[in-house]
């Protein structure tokens, strides 16, 4: 299956704009993002803490809908999903 992962702002600069991933069936959002973020230590550390869990301020969306970071380890991705990972918003 194919899932699109989008990073924004500081995370985008460190990890890339848009990654097409092919996770194994049953992969959680956390597992998917962890695997992609491994490619850049600074990017990984921006998103995950020393226990490998999402930092409190990181915002996670699945198909435009907010997912609590605490649930990202149990929410499973599906084919065609768009996962977005970004820091706190600062528009206006």
């Amino acid at each position: 299956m194919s899932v699109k992962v989008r990073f924004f702002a500081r995370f985008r600069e460190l990890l890339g704009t848009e990654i097409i991933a092919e996770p194994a069936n049953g992969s959680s959002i956390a597992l998917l993002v962890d695997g992609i973020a491994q490619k850049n230590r600074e990017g990984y550390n921006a998103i995950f803490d020393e226990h490998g869990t999402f930092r409190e301020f990181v915002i996670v969306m699945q198909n435009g809908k907010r997912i609590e970071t605490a649930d990202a380890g149990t929410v499973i991705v599906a084919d065609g999903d768009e996962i977005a990972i970004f820091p706190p918003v600062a528009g206006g």
Partner: protein
Amino acid sequence: MMIRIQTDDVDVAAMIAAAKVPGTGAVVVFDGIVRDDGITEMELEAYEDVAVAGLEKIAVEATERFGLLHVSIVHRIGRLAIGENIVVIVVSAGHRHEAYDGSRFIIDELKHTVPIWKKELTRDGGRWVDGEHGHGAGKPQE
């Protein structure tokens, strides 16, 4: 209702003209500007589809809560110089209190919930602007 995220500049006069629907007694415009904080330029990016949907939701909620007659919001992305418009919000209502309260509700919600980011560019590089909630406060708001 007109909601847009765009790189082009904003025609505020046209937005005000469009806001003067029947029943209008007050129009309030909020115009957010790139401030000269020792920067050279500002760069904005948005998670566009989600940002537009978020702005639409805020506009609908403001309309219901404050009895607004018209709402339009244009938020810019891309590189902006000092003094340029970042966001323009135009609302109309029968009376001024509703218009002020509705306008303020929209910009406050926008700043806290809509996926848009700003990077201040300086001679030495740049820095991403912290949201008003700051890091460590990114809890879902609904």
